[in-house]
C-alpha cells in the first residue's frame, strides 16, 4: 500500500511522460506480483465501486478526530476534498503497517459491502490509523469510489511493455481481456498478459508492416518525375488521417493504425462492418470520419496478395462485399496523362489533404510506389499581438506569440494611424481598426547556455518595450513586428474571433520589410478556404 501511495504521489508530481513512465516502471520492478496486478487494474481505470457512502464516513471521522461538526465542515470547505480533509483531521497514525496493496483490497476493502454501515465506517477509520496522510487519502478515495488514475492508458501500456520487454502491440491485443471488469486482477492473469511469446492466433491478429509512404511537396514534383509517367499511377484523395489495416480472422477483427495503436474500441462501426468480410481478409485504408476508406487489399482468404501488382489487388478488392462504413476510395483520373499537380486544386475540399499516388504495377511495400502529394502550403502575413512564456508538456519553456490579422485592412495611412491611435488609447475599436487573433506560434527556447538567439533578433527586447498591458502571464503588445507564416490548412471555426482555425502553423520568416498595411485581413483568409466550405455555413 505504501509503495502504491508513493507511486500515486510520483505520478501526481510528474510533469512529463518520461517521468510518468519511469515512475510506473520503478513501481512494477519493485512491487510483488499480486500488488502489481491490482495496481495495473486500478491505473487502467478499474474502480472498486462505492464501498461506503461519504456522509456516514464523515460522521464517524468527526467523532474519531474529536472535532465539532462545524469545524470539520469548515475544513472541508477549505480543502474542497473529503478524502484530504479526513486524512489530515484524524489523529496521527499510532502504528505504521506496510501490508500489500493486494491484501488491502482483497482482504479488507472488498469485504466492506458485507458489513453494516456503522461497522464499515468503524473499520475504515481503524484502517486509517495504520496509514500516513497520503495513504489515508488514497484509501478513502478508493472506498468512496472517487479514485482516479493519474496516467492515461497509452502511457501505462508503454510502461508495461518496457517493463516486461514485450511488443506493445501484443499488449494492446491482450488488453481488452485484462480490463474485463468481471475478472478479478491477480498475479497469474497479469503474468499471462505480459508473457513475451505470442500465440499463433495472436500473431495472425497483427497487422502487416505498413508500406513506406513517401511525402512529396507539390512544388517538387511534376509528371516527368513520376517514374514511368503519370499513366503508371493511380490517384486517390488523401485525407491526411491515420493509415489503418483491418485484419479479419475467424476469431475476430482488429483495426491497427500504422503507429501500432489498436482502434477497436474507438471504431466500433468499422468492426461491426468487418464481420461481413470473408474470413482472413486484410485491408488497408484511411480513417475518414468514423469510416474506413479502403485503398489496398493485402490478404484474401489466406492468400497473400502483397507480392501481386496493385491493380490486381484492387481488382479483387472491388469484388469484396463492403458494407458501410467501409468503402473503396474513389479513383481520380489524370486527364491526358499529365501531371497530377493540377488535380490538387480541383479536389480541394474540407478534410482532404492532398493526393495519394499508387503505382499500378508495384507489389505492396515496393520502393517509391506509394506517395502522398501535399498541396502547397498557404501563407499569410500577420502581426505579433500577444506574447507569453509557456511551459510545454516536455518541460521546456517556450515563447508563445499570438498572431493577428486585420478584420478589414485600413484603406490608407490615415486609417492605419487612426486604428493605431484607438488601440493605444484603449478606445472602442470599430470595423477596420481591429487586429483579430489568428493563430498562436510557439518558438523553441534558446539552446541551453546561449540565450543569444532570441536576443540577437531583438525579439525579447522588443516584447518588453512593446508591452501595452499585462493580463497575468499574457502581454498585449503594440503591433509592429510582422511575420510571414506558413500553414497546411484552414477551416472555418465559429469559436475563433477571426473565424478560422489554422493547422500546422509555422514561422516562415520575419518581415521587417513590410508595414502594418501589408498584414492580411479576414477577407483574404476567407478566400483561402476550400471552395465547398466557403459556400456553406460560414459564421
Amino acid at each position, binding site marked *: 500500500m505504501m509503495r502504491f501511495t508513493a507511486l500515486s504521489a510520483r505520478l501526481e508530481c510528474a*510533469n512529463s511522460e518520461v517521468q510518468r513512465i519511469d515512475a510506473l516502471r520503478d513501481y512494477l520492478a519493485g512491487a510483488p506480483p499480486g500488488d502489481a496486478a491490482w495496481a495495473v487494474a486500478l491505473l487502467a481505470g478499474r474502480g472498486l465501486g462505492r464501498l461506503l457512502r461519504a456522509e456516514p464516513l464523515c460522521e464517524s471521522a468527526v467523532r474519531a478526530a474529536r*472535532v465539532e461538526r462545524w469545524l470539520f465542515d469548515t475544513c472541508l470547505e*477549505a*480543502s474542497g476534498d473529503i478524502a484530504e*480533509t479526513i486524512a489530515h483531521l484524524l489523529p496521527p497514525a499510532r502504528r505504521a503497517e506496510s501490508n500489500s496493496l493486494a491484501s488491502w483490497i482483497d482482504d479488507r476493502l472488498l469485504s466492506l459491502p458485507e458489513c453494516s454501515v456503522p461497522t464499515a465506517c468503524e473499520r475504515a477509520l481503524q484502517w486509517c490509523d495504520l496509514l500516513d496522510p497520503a495513504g489515508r487519502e488514497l484509501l478513502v478515495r478508493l472506498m468512496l469510489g472517487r479514485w482516479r488514475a493519474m496516467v492515461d492508458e497509452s502511457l501505462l501500456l508503454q510502461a508495461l511493455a518496457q517493463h516486461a520487454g514485450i511488443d506493445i502491440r501484443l499488449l494492446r491485443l491482450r488488453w481488452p481481456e485484462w480490463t474485463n471488469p468481471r475478472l478479478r486482477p491477480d498475479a497469474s492473469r497479469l503474468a499471462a498478459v505480459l508473457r513475451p511469446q505470442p500465440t499463433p492466433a495472436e500473431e495472425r491478429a497483427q497487422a502487416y508492416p505498413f508500406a513506406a509512404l513517401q511525402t512529396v511537396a507539390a512544388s517538387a514534383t511534376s509528371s516527368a518525375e513520376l517514374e514511368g509517367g503519370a499513366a503508371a499511377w493511380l490517384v486517390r484523395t488523401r485525407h491526411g488521417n491515420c493509415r489503418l489495416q483491418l485484419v479479419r480472422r475467424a476469431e475476430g477483427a482488429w483495426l491497427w493504425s500504422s503507429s501500432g495503436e489498436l482502434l477497436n474500441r474507438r471504431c466500433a462501426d468499422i468492426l461491426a462492418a468487418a464481420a461481413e468480410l470473408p474470413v482472413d481478409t486484410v485491408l488497408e485504408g484511411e480513417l475518414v470520419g468514423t469510416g474506413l476508406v479502403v485503398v489496398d487489399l493485402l490478404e484474401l482468404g489466406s492468400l497473400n496478395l502483397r507480392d501481386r501488382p496493385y491493380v490486381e489487388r484492387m481488382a479483387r478488392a472491388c469484388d469484396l462485399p463492403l458494407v458501410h462504413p467501409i468503402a473503396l476510395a474513389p479513383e481520380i483520373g489524370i486527364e491526358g496523362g499529365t501531371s497530377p499537380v493540377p488535380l490538387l486544386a480541383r479536389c480541394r475540399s474540407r478534410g482532404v489533404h492532398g493526393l495519394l499516388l499508387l503505382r499500378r504495377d508495384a507489389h505492396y511495400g515496393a520502393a517509391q510506389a506509394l506517395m502522398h502529394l501535399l498541396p502547397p502550403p498557404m501563407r499569410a502575413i500577420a502581426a505579433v499581438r500577444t506574447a507569453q512564456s509557456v511551459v510545454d508538456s516536455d518541460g521546456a519553456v517556450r515563447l508563445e506569440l499570438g498572431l493577428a490579422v486585420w478584420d478589414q485592412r485600413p484603406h490608407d495611412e490615415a486609417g492605419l494611424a487612426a486604428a493605431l491611435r484607438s488601440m493605444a488609447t484603449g478606445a472602442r475599436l470599430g470595423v477596420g481598426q481591429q487586429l483579430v487573433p489568428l493563430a498562436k506560434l510557439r518558438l523553441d527556447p534558446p539552446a*541551453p*547556455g546561449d*540565450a543569444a538567439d532570441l536576443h540577437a533578433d531583438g525579439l525579447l527586447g522588443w516584447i518588453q518595450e512593446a508591452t501595452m498591458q499585462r493580463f497575468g502571464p499574457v502581454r498585449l503588445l503594440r503591433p509592429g513586428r510582422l511575420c510571414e507564416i506558413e500553414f497546411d490548412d484552414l477551416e472555418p471555426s465559429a469559436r475563433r474571433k477571426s473565424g478560422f482555425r489554422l493547422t500546422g502553423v509555422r514561422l516562415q520568416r520575419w518581415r521587417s520589410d513590410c508595414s502594418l498595411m501589408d498584414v492580411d485581413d479576414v477577407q483574404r483568409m476567407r478566400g483561402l478556404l476550400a471552395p465547398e466550405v466557403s459556400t456553406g455555413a460560414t459564421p
Partner: protein
Amino acid sequence: MASDTDDLIVERPEGLYCPPGRFHIDPWRAVDRAVITHAHADHARAGHRHVLAVAASEPVLRARLGSVPMQGLGYGEVVQMNGVRVSLHPAGHVFGSAQVRVEHRGRVWVASGDYYLSEHDESNPTCAAFEPLRCDCFVTESTFGLPLYRWRPQHETLAQINAWWRDNARECRPSLLAAYSFGKAQRLLAGVDASIGPIVVHRSVDAMNAACRAAGMRLPATLAWSAIESRAQLSEALVIAPPMALADASMHLLGGASRAFASGWMQLRHHRRQRGFDRGFVLSDHADWPGLQRAIRATGARRVIVTHGHEAVMVRWLREQGLQAGTFATPFGAAPDGDADPVADSP
C-alpha cells in the same frame, strides 16, 4: 472588546497599541514608538521615530527600516516604558523574532507576533525556540488556524527536499525552490544537505543572507544568481528564489528545471496546484493547529485575542473551550514576506 479601558493592548487605526506604555506593537502606520516583533514586511514597516526590537535582529531590520533610532534588547531583558515593564521573548518564527510581554500593575499581556510551534519537540534551527509565557491575555496569530494544518516533523520534509534535489542533480536538472527571502530561505539553507551540489540564491535572498551572517547565523556557502553565466553551472544546483522572481526574464536559464515551493500552504492540494509547481514541500515558520493549541494552553491565559488567519474559526473554537476570545483586525499576513498568504508574492 478592544475598547475595554483596562486592556493593556488595544487596536488603533495605526496598529496595536499599549495605552499605559504609550507604544505600538508592529504598527502599520508611522508612529513615535514602535516595538517590532520581527523583520517581515507586514510587521516591520518603515517611518517610525523610534524602534525597539531584539538586538540580534538589528542588521536584518536595518536592511528594511534604514537608519531609524533603534534600541536593541536581549531576550528576556526588561525595559520600563512609562511604568510598563516590557520584555521580548523568543517566538521561534524567524531569526530575531520575538513575543512582546507587557506587565502593568500586576497584569501580564503577551503579543505573540508570528510564532512557530508544533506538536513535535523541535524548533526552527535559525532562531531561538518559542518560549511559553504565563499571562492573563494572549494576543495570538492564527495563520494556520484549521485542524487541517498539522506539520510532520521537519526532518521528514527536509529529507524529501534533499531526495528531490538529489534526483534532479542526478539527471542534470536544476532544482528551483521558491521560498520567501527572509526566514524560509535561511531555514532551508540551514537544513538541506549542502554536499549534494552548489546552492545558488536570488539577489533578494543573498541580501538577507548577508544580514543574517552579519548577525552571526551560520549558513552554507552560496553562489549569487548574478554570477551564473550558463545553464551548465545550474545542472546540479539548488536555486533558492522568492516566488515572484520565478516570473523574472532572467530566470530563462532555468527552462526544464524542476520547480518546488516550500510553505505551510503546500499541505493542501489545491494550493499546490494553484501555483503550478511540480512539488510542494510542507515547511512552515508558523504554528500549526496543534502548535497554536499548545501555545495557548501553555500561557494559562483566560482571554485570547486572535489577530490574523481564520480568526472566526479560532474564536469560536476558543469559546467552546470556555475561554474569553475576540479578534483584532490587523493587516498581518496580507503582506508578502511571511508564508502568511498562499498567493502573495515577494517584492
